[in-house]
C-alpha cells in the first residue's frame, strides 16, 4: 500500500459560506487505486469537499494536488479534464432531457456542422449501459419519468461513461436498496481493478466496511482522522464522527415503561397522492417518536399531511381524539390544534432569509401580538427575546436578517419560531442536517426538555444513531408504509437498518 502514489492530496482547505465555515483547514491524502471512505455527520463538510473536487466551488484558501501535480479546479470542466467524475447526491440530471442527452451533455460528439452525432453516440451509450446491466433503461425516456433509484444509477453510469481516473460517489446508497447496493459493489470492484481511485461518501458503516480500504473522518469541517478501515472498531469510528461518547451526546432517556401522557395526535389509514400508504400512528404527550426510512419512503408526505401542507387521499386525523380536517398550515398553527413543523430545508422552507430573526420567529403567531389590528412591538420584542435566550441565540438575531447566521443558529431560529407558538406537537424533519456538533447536542437537550414539559415530538432523521439514542420508540417506513415499530428496549441501529431496507421480518410486523 505505501508504495502507491497519492491520487488526491488536499492541503489546508478552507471554505466558508457567509457565517458558516463548511470546511475549516482540512487536509487529506488518498492513495491511488484505493477505495477511500469520507465519513462524517451531516454538515461535517463532506459534500463541500466533493463540490470543491468537482469544480463546483473553489476553496477560499488551500490547495489540491492530483497525482502530485498542483491543480486549480475552477469549473466542472476543469475537474473533468483532470479525470475527476462525480455522481452527486442531489442528482444533476436535467428533468426535461432524455437519458441519452443527459449522459452526453456537454460533450456530445458533433459533426463539422455542429450537429450532434446522435446515432453513433446512442450506440456507444447503449453498449455502456448494457455492460453495467442497465440495458432495460430506455435512452429516449425523459428523466422526469424515472424513479429516484434509477436516476441514481444513471448518475453513476454517466460518471463511468467518461472513463474517470478519480471517481467521487456522494452518498450513492442513500437512495439505493438491497440489490442495487450489491450492483454498486460490483462496479466499485471492477473500477478498482482498472486502477481507478474511488472516494466513497456514506453514512453507513456497513457499506464502508464492505467497499472501502481506507477512510477519513471529518467533523465540523475539520480533518479528524485517517486510517485503514480494518484497523478501526465501530465504536472508535462513531466516537470520532460525533466527537464525544454516545453517553455524553444524548440526554438520558426515561425508562421504557415510563407512563406517557394522553394521545394528542393520531392519524389513521393516512394515504397521500405521493408515496404515503395507509399510515396509522399515535403521538402522546411527553414522548419522542422517531421515524426512520431511506430517502423517499413516504416520511415527507407523512409530515406534510399532518401539518396540512399536503392533502391526504384517504384516512383521518384526530386531535385530542376528535376527528379534524387540517386543510392548511393555517389550521395546524391554531392555538386549539397546536401542531408545528420544522421542515427539511432551512433556506427555502423554514426561514425568511431576508427578514430579521424576530420577524421570522413571530410570523406564525403575529396575530397574538396584535391589538386593534396593530402589532404591539414591545410585547413582541419581549416574547421573542425570551425564546431566543431560552435556546441561546444571540440578541443580534432580533434585528439581523436570518441569512447572516450560521447553519446551527439558523436552525435554532427556525425552532424558536415554533417554541414561541407554544404548540403541543412538534414535527421535526431531519432537524440536525448541516449543523455543528455543539448545536446538535443543544437540540437533543431541547427536544427532551420539550417532551418532559408535556409536548409530543415526531422526529425524522437520516442519522440513525440519533433515533436509537433519543427516541422513545421508532417507526420504520418502507415504500410508503409503516412497516415496523420498535420500542426503546429493542432499539438498535441494526434493527432499524434491516427494516428500512425492506427486511423480510420487518414486513410481517407492520404496526
Amino acid at each position, binding site marked *: 500500500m505505501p508504495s502507491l502514489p497519492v491520487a488526491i492530496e488536499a492541503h489546508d482547505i478552507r471554505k466558508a459560506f457567509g457565517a458558516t465555515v463548511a470546511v475549516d483547514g482540512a487536509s487529506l491524502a488518498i492513495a491511488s487505486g484505493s477505495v477511500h471512505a469520507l465519513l462524517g455527520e451531516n454538515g461535517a463538510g463532506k459534500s463541500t469537499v466533493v463540490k470543491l473536487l468537482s469544480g463546483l466551488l473553489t476553496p477560499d484558501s488551500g490547495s489540491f494536488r492530483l497525482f502530485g501535480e498542483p491543480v486549480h479546479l475552477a469549473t466542472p470542466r476543469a475537474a473533468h479534464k483532470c479525470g475527476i467524475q462525480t455522481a452527486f447526491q442531489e442528482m444533476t440530471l436535467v428533468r*426535461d432531457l432524455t437519458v441519452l442527452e443527459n449522459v452526453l*451533455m456537454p460533450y456530445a460528439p458533433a459533426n463539422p456542422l*455542429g450537429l450532434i452525432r446522435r446515432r453513433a453516440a446512442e450506440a456507444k451509450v447503449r453498449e455502456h449501459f448494457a455492460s453495467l446491466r442497465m440495458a432495460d433503461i430506455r435512452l429516449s425516456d425523459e428523466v422526469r419519468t424515472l424513479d429516484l433509484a434509477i436516476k441514481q444509477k444513471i448518475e453513476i453510469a454517466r460518471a463511468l461513461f467518461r472513463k474517470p481516473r478519480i471517481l467521487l460517489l456522494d452518498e450513492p446508497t442513500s437512495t439505493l436498496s438491497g440489490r442495487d447496493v450489491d450492483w454498486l459493489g460490483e462496479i466499485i470492484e471492477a473500477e478498482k481493478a482498472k486502477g481507478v481511485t474511488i472516494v466513497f461518501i456514506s453514512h453507513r458503516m456497513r457499506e464502508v466496511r464492505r467497499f472501502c480500504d481506507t477512510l477519513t473522518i471529518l467533523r465540523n469541517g475539520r480533518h479528524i482522522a485517517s486510517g485503514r478501515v480494518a484497523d478501526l472498531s465501530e465504536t472508535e469510528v462513531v466516537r470520532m464522527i460525533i466527537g464525544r461518547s454516545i453517553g455524553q451526546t444524548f440526554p438520558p432517556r426515561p425508562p421504557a415503561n415510563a407512563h406517557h401522557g394522553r394521545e394528542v395526535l393520531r392519524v389513521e389509514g393516512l394515504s397521500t397522492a405521493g408515496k404515503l400508504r395507509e399510515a396509522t400512528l399515535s403521538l402522546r404527550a411527553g414522548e419522542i417518536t422517531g421515524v426512520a426510512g431511506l430517502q423517499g419512503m413516504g416520511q415527507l408526505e407523512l409530515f406534510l399531511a399532518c401539518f396540512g401542507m399536503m392533502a391526504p387521499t384517504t384516512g383521518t386525523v384526530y*386531535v385530542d381524539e376528535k*376527528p379534524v380536517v387540517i386543510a392548511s398550515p393555517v389550521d395546524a398553527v391554531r392555538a386549539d390544534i397546536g401542531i408545528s413543523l420544522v421542515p427539511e430545508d432551512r433556506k*427555502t422552507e423554514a426561514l425568511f432569509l431576508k*427578514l430579521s430573526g424576530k*420577524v421570522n420567529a413571530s410570523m406564525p403567531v*403575529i396575530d397574538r401580538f396584535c391589538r386593534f389590528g396593530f402589532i404591539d412591538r414591545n410585547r413582541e420584542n419581549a416574547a421573542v427575546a425570551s425564546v431566543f435566550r431560552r435556546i441561546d441565540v444571540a440578541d443580534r438575531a432580533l*434585528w439581523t436578517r436570518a441569512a447572516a447566521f450560521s447553519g446551527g443558529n439558523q436552525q435554532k431560529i427556525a425552532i424558536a419560531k415554533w417554541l414561541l407558538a407554544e404548540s403541543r406537537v412538534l414535527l421535526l424533519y431531519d432537524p440536525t442536517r448541516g449543523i455543528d456538533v455543539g448545536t446538535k447536542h443543544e437540540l437533543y437537550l431541547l427536544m427532551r426538555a420539550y417532551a418532559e414539559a408535556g409536548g409530543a415530538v415526531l422526529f425524522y432523521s437520516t442519522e440513525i444513531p440519533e433515533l436509537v439514542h433519543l427516541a422513545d420508540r421508532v417507526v420504520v417506513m418502507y415504500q410508503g408504509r409503516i412497516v415496523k415499530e420498535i420500542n426503546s428496549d429493542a432499539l438498535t441501529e441494526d434493527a432499524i437498518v434491516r427494516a428500512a431496507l425492506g427486511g423480510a421480518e420487518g414486513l410481517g410486523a407492520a404496526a
Partner: protein
Amino acid sequence: MTDIAKDSPQIMSRGFRFPWARHQGVMVAVVVLIGLLAINNLMSRGGMSYFEFSFLSLGGATLAIAAAGQTLVILTGGFDLSVGAVISLVNVLLATNMPDSGQGALLWALIGIGVGMTTGAFNGFFIAFLRLQPIVVTLATMFIVQGLTLLVLDKPGGAVSSRLSEVLVNDAIPGMLPMPIVVLGIVIVLWLWLKNTRFGTAIYAIGSDMDAARAQGISVAWTQFLVYVLAGGCYGFAGVFISAQTGAGDPLIGNAMLLQVFGAVVVGGTRLGGGRGSVIGSIIGAYILVIVVNLLLVFNISAYYSTIVEGCILILAVLVGALSRSSRASERSRLLLRRLGAWYRGLLPRQGHRLPQLLPLPGKESTGDEAGASFLERHREQLRYVLPAYVCFVLVLLLTQLMTGRALTNGSYYSSLLVLSSFLLILALGQGSVILTGGLDLSVPWTIALCGILLAGIVNGQNGPLIWVLPMVLAVGTLVGLVNGVGIAVLGISPIVMTLAMNGILQGLALLYSQGTPAGFSAPLMRWFMTDKSGLVTPVVVFVVIFVAIAMILHTRTAFGRRLYAIGNGERVAALSGIAVDRMVILVYMLSGFCSALVGIMLTGFSGQASLGMGDEYLLPSIAVVVVGGTLITGGRGSYLGMVGGVLLLTALQILLAGTTLPYATRVIIYGLVVLAAVVALRERSN
C-alpha cells in the same frame, strides 16, 4: 460483468418511442391551427384563395419571427419584455435612413438585425454576467429603446423602400408560394439545426435545471448571453420584416406586439419557466392568434375586441398548458372541496370546540428588555437600502437650486413637487406591495386609463354624481385586482402573464366603452382638489400626506405588512409558517388595483379629462420608484419609506429635466438607466 451483459435483453431498449409528452404542446397547437383554418375556409365564400393564403402568411410572419426569438429566451427560463420596442426602433431606423437601392436595402436589413442583436447583448450582459432579473433588465431596456425610437422619429412617417418588400413580402413562386412562408421555412431550418447542436441541448438544460446544467459543465452565463443576442437578432429581423410589410415608419408599431408575442409562445406549447417547447410551436401559435383576429373581421366584430381576445387566449393557453391533476388550479379546487366537506361534517378546526392549549417551555426566564444595541446598529441594513434614494434626492434638489436659483427656499417648488409626486406615492403602495410579495403588476396602465375614462364619461363635468361614481370607479379598480389575484394565486398563472393579459383586456374594454375617443370632463370639485392654490397648500397635498402615513403604518405595524414581506421571501416558507398565502396574494393585487383606480381619478381631476393611454407613462415609474427605493425586484426586502424616497427623487429629477429642453424621449431613457443603475447598486450581496 460483461458475461451478464450478453444475455441481457437489449431488444427492449432498441424500441424507439415517439416522445409524446415532449411534443404535446405543439401537437395541440397544430390541431387548433387546422381547426381554425377550416373555420376560416368555411366562412370565406368559395374556400380559401391563394390571395387569402398569402395575405394570412404575410400577416403572421412578423409575429412568428419575433415569437421565435422570445421562445429561445423563455426556453432558458428567462423573459424578454424588450421585443416590441426593438421592432419599433428597427422600423423607424429603416423608415428614416434606408436608401432606395438594392444594396442599401440589404445593408439596412443587416443593420436592423445588428441593432436587435446589440440590444440583446445589452440585455444579456446584465442578465447573464451580472445575474440580474430578466424582467427588470428587459423592462428598463424596453423603455430606453422606446426613448431612442422617439428620438429617431416621434410620429408616424418616413418611407421604406419598396426594394425590401420586393424581396421579403412578394411571391417566391407567383400564385404558389408566398415569400413569408419561405422566410419562415428558413427560420425553422435554422432552429432545427440549433436544436441539434450542443448549444441547443444547453438551452433546454439550463431552462429545465440550471444547477444541474452548471454541475455538468455547461457554461450557463455564455449560453444565456448568446440566447439574448440571438433573440435580439430575431426581433431586429421582425422589425425589418414589418417595415417591408407596411412600407412606413411608426414609433409605436411594436407596442401592441408584446402581448401577442407572449400569446404566440404560450399557445405554441412552450412552458413559461423554461425547459420545454419549441420555436416551431411558437410560429404555429403566432398564426393561431392572427387567424383568430382575422376571424373577428370575418364575423364583423369590432377591432376593439382584438386585445381582449388576445388577452383571453393567453390566459386560456396558460391554463390549458398546465392542465393536469397536479396543476395549481386543480389542487386548489380539491382543497376547496375538502374544506367544504369538512365544514359539512363539522370537522373544521373551529367547529371542534377545543380549548386553546399552549405549551410554554419552562426555564431561563429573560428580563425582556431590549439589548443595548444602538439605533444605528439595529437598522444598519435597512438604512443601506433606503438612504441612497434620499441622498440622491438632496443632490437633485441642490442641482435644481444651482440651475434655477430657486428651489430650496421656494414654497411653490415643494408644493408642485408634492402634487406631482402624489400619483407615484399612491402607485408605489400598490406596485410596491405586489413587488414585495414577489409579483409584478403590468396592468397598471390600463387600469388607470379605464378608471379615468369611466369617471370622466359618467360625471361629465357634474359634481353631483361623484358621490356614487367615485366609490364605483374604485370598486372597478379593486375588482381588476381581484381577478388578477385569483388568476395568480388560485389558477397559478405567472404574475407577468396574468397582468399583461389583463392590461390587454382592459385596453379593449376602455376602447369599447369610449368607442375610441374618451368623452366627458372631470368634476369641478376634483379639479379644485387637484389644482387649487388659494389655500396654504393644494388639497391633494394634505390627502397624500395622510395617505403616506397610513401606508407606512400598514407596512410596518400590521400583520398584513408582515405577511407581505414573508411571502416575498418564498411562498413555501410563508405557507409553512401558517400564512394563508392565496388570500394575501389576492388582497395585495386588490390593493394595487385600488391604488391604480385612485390615480386614474386623480389624473383625470388634474388634467380635466381622460385620454386613452393616459396610464402608459406610469408603468415604468411605478416600478422604478420601488426599485430605486431599495426594494428587491424579486420581493422580500424593501420598505415603503424607501419607495417614498424613490418617488421624491424621480419627481425632482423630472421637474429638473422638464425645466431643461430635453424631450420626453430623453427622460424615458434616463428613467430606464436610473432603474438599471439602482438594480445593480442595490442588488443582494451574494455570499
